[in-house]
């Protein structure tokens, strides 16, 4: 019975935070911290307890480490179906971790309406956990849309605006409309899939396992796959659909950026791995070259635009687009190794992007600007912070010894056998990522200083947050085996679905 608690803890915690606001500013923070700590602890406990060699495979009966199912909307065959396998577990643990961090990093940043802020923060995380656990397509969509509203509030009410208050509301609305409209396309695709299944079998169901075996004509499959793909592409974000991301990041409070980059983008990657590929293997195999091309475009486009930014948060935001390009290539390459790499990269990027955004937030609290032309020479003025930024900057350019390196390496290595050219081009993208990462460090921390007055160093809370992320990222870089073991079974399943569909395509391509 732990599964519903994973979702309920954030929701109930959020409500408590709201109610606790009348007893002072500090109480909601502690409640939120406790709730997130509990979520993280529960996730870790499940990790040590469970056996994650079980995961859905094509052909086999569905196997989950933990499962829960109640009838919900019987009229339409919708169940309250939650299940956990290694992939979900890793994502839930990441959510718990970043949840704790986002509560901590807003400790001094958020000073008004603390209770309501934490209500929104925790509800986002509850929705995200729901997305990672839902095994009923309706339920999945339900959670998918549910996390938008609190995120909207977070950006619109506690965000920063450079010029007037208009901008943050515009950014929040843009985020909402992009994701909601694309989400409705996915809903149509879900309904189409259910309809096809109904016409085949005469049974209305939204259950993942049953829909997995739906037979459909190739044209239909391709269209439905596109419906899913567009929804995930917006959140991913894949390049033509990305324009909400820099705006949302630039205006969001630190905790919002941490959640957005750290976990909300991961829900899209998760959705592709869990739903888009297994439900539509043939169409996905056919689509894979386009998807990988989009990934390549994302890598270069994100890197180039990142280099051109003067706002430090926008720089990190564009770098996320670039990194997610690698994840996309890993997902669609059809190699198990690359898929595993994509998982590690997702975790590593979650940690490193979160850390960079936290550092940006700390910088902003001291300088009250995010404009890098106003910075320079900060190394002398702040203790610790520049060094830590340097670490995460080089981590995000893929320095060996950090999780990002493992992820990128596995993706490139795994994809090389089948897609050598994609890998060759993607590798040159790595050069660009070192350019923008180092440029960021150079512009902000080195060079001539604007003033000589020292700024406050990091306090224990701030240093503790970032240092723990350093430790985790290095651990992931040096010993990623537990993560790989946990996700292995899930990735094998996905690889078999896609691989089976890919191999005839490849052999047809190579045959004379």
């Amino acid at each position: 019975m732990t599964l519903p608690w994973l979702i309920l803890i954030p929701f109930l915690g959020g409500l408590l935070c709201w109610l606790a606001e009348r007893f002072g500013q500090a109480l909601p923070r502690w409640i939120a911290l406790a709730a997130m700590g509990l979520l993280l602890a529960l996730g870790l406990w499940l990790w040590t307890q469970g056996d994650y060699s079980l995961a859905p495979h094509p052909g086999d009966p569905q196997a989950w480490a933990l499962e829960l199912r109640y009838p919900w909307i019987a009229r339409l065959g919708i169940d309250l179906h939650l299940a956990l396998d290694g992939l979900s577990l890793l994502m839930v643990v990441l959510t718990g971790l970043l949840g704790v961090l986002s509560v901590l990093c807003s400790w001094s940043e958020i000073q008004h309406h603390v209770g309501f802020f934490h209500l929104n923060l925790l509800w986002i995380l509850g929705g995200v956990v729901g997305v990672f656990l839902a095994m009923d397509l309706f339920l999945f969509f339900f959670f998918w849309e549910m996390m938008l509203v609190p995120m909207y509030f977070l950006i619109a009410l506690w965000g920063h605006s450079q010029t007037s208050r208009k901008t943050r509301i515009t950014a929040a609305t843009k985020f909402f409309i992009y994701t909601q409209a694309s989400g409705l396309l996915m809903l149509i695709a879900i309904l189409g899939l259910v309809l096809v299944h109904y016409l085949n079998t005469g049974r209305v169901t939204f259950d993942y396992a049953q829909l997995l075996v739906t037979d459909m004509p190739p044209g239909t499959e391709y269209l439905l796959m596109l419906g899913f793909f567009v929804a995930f592409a917006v959140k991913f974000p894949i390049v033509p659909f990305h324009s909400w991301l820099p705006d949302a990041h630039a205006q969001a409070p630190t905790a919002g950026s941490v959640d957005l980059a750290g976990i909300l983008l991961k829900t899209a990657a998760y959705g592709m791995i869990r739903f888009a590929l297994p439900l539509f293997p043939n169409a996905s195999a056919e689509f894979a070259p386009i998807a990988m091309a989009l990934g390549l475009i994302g890598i270069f486009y994100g890197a180039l635009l990142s280099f051109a930014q003067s706002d430090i948060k926008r720089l990190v935001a564009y770098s996320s687009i670039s990194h997610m390009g690698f994840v996309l290539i890993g997902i669609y390459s059809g190699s198990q190794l690359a898929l595993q790499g994509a998982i590690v990269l997702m975790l590593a990027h979650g940690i490193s992007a979160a850390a960079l955004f936290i550092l940006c937030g700390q910088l902003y609290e001291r300088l009250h600007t995010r404009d890098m032309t106003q910075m320079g020479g900060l190394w002398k003025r702040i203790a610790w912070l520049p060094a830590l930024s340097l670490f995460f900057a080089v981590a995000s350019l893929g320095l060996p010894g950090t999780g990002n390196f493992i992820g990128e390496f596995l993706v490139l290595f795994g994809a090389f056998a089948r897609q050598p050219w994609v890998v060759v081009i993607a590798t040159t993208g790595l050069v660009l990522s070192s350019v923008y990462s180092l440029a960021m460090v150079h512009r902000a921390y080195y060079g001539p200083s604007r003033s000589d007055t020292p700024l406050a160093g990091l306090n224990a809370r701030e240093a503790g947050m970032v240092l723990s992320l350093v430790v985790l990222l290095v651990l992931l870089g040096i010993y990623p085996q537990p993560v790989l073991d946990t996700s292995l079974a899930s990735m094998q399943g996905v690889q078999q679905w896609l691989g089976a569909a890919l191999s005839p395509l490849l052999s047809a391509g190579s045959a004379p």
Partner: protein
Amino acid sequence: MNLTLPHFIALLPLLITGATAILVMLLIAWQRIHRIAYLASLLGLVLALLSLIPALEVAPLEITTLMRVDRLGLFYSALVLIATLACVTLAHAYLGRKPGEGGFPGNREELYLLMLLSASGAIVLVTSQHLASLFIGLELLSVPVYGLVGYAFFHRQSLEAALKYLVLSAAGSAFLLFGMALLYAEAGSLEFIGIGLSMGTFGSAPLVEVGIAMLLVGLGFKLSLVPFHLWTPDVYQGAPAPVAAFLATTSKIAVFAVVLRLYQMSPATYGGWLTPVLSVIAIASILIGNLLALNQSNLKRLLGYSSIAHFGYLLIALIATDGLATEAVAVYLAAYLLSTLGAFGVVSLMSSPFKGRDADALFEYRGLFWRRPYLTAVLTVMMLSLAGIPLTSGFIGKFYVLIAGVQAQLWTLVIVLVVGSAIGLYYYLRVMVTLYLVEPGMKRRDPPINWPQRAGGIMLLAIAVLSFVLGVYPQPLLVLAQAAGF
């Protein structure tokens, strides 16, 4: 035909509503006591709602050729009665105390009388299966509304709205009558089924097509579908807030219910041109309604435009005809009822007791959350529900319409729905975020602090909770809607 006991039982909701109207009229004639008129109306409406239960036992039943009391009719009667009940409680809060003590300066009791009359018209309408009873019901529904819209007649806007509605609605009725006459000339019957049969056997004739087109114009006016929507924003803005709520819910739901019955019982699709025309109307209503709402700074006008778009969505389910379409209409209308009542309810309470003009400018709602958190939570839920976001009943409604559209493979319409709701999000979110923004020097105009202890407040909270609960666990509503088929 002899009327027997079951017939009277089937007619109970109508009879009780009508009798209450007469009772309230007599009470007013005897002595004007606001409280008694209000309580009598409430009691009558509750009894009418309860009488649906025995009526269900005898349904389906034909009462002469005019009316057919079946599950469909009873379901929509229930919606109409609930809407009226809610509007009556809102009106009570809105009218306030005696003229001298702050409140509505004119006579207050007749408002209930008019609402009851209109509600009995709505019940006739949803159970009619004959063009004559359709017309009687429609007029009984609309004529009291003229009075209601102009109830605050000492205000120019209210009076203007009443005149506008009177003229346009009368024009709509004229079209409707002419259309009926043409249909009768060709089909020789006024029964829905009879018309369908005759068209099935003899095919379509030019007169029939013109007749159907005129019916479409007349009913389109009442539903404010594009291009017959021009009156909507002005009338919504001018009418007192509880009346606007009544107009947006009771009146529209009843008309749509009869359109559904007409469309399904006398398949007018033989001509072949009706579906494309309806599709174009649906697309135009969705796009134009949503686009015009984008820049509104008046909440009542905004809701008016949004209701145009919502009836565009509903038309998709109507066009889909088979499969889950009837259910989709029922679920969507129930969800629409809740969210519209809630949204107008908040406007009513904000404007209560009557202080001259209604609190309908968006800036008056700025930062409301930090002063009246629960009232704001209600309005937030309603906006999310109107936008169709999960956890609210509006999402279930939209979900059902999408199912109906996908099932009938109306891909263009389904895509337009997606585009429309993306546009719609923009203004719903704008309203929502306004509630939470704090600005120094805000203009304060708030409902009394004890608003949740009044009947209107309790009703509003109940609606919000219901909207949330049905959004999370919609099974009961879906079962009801399934039973409300033909």
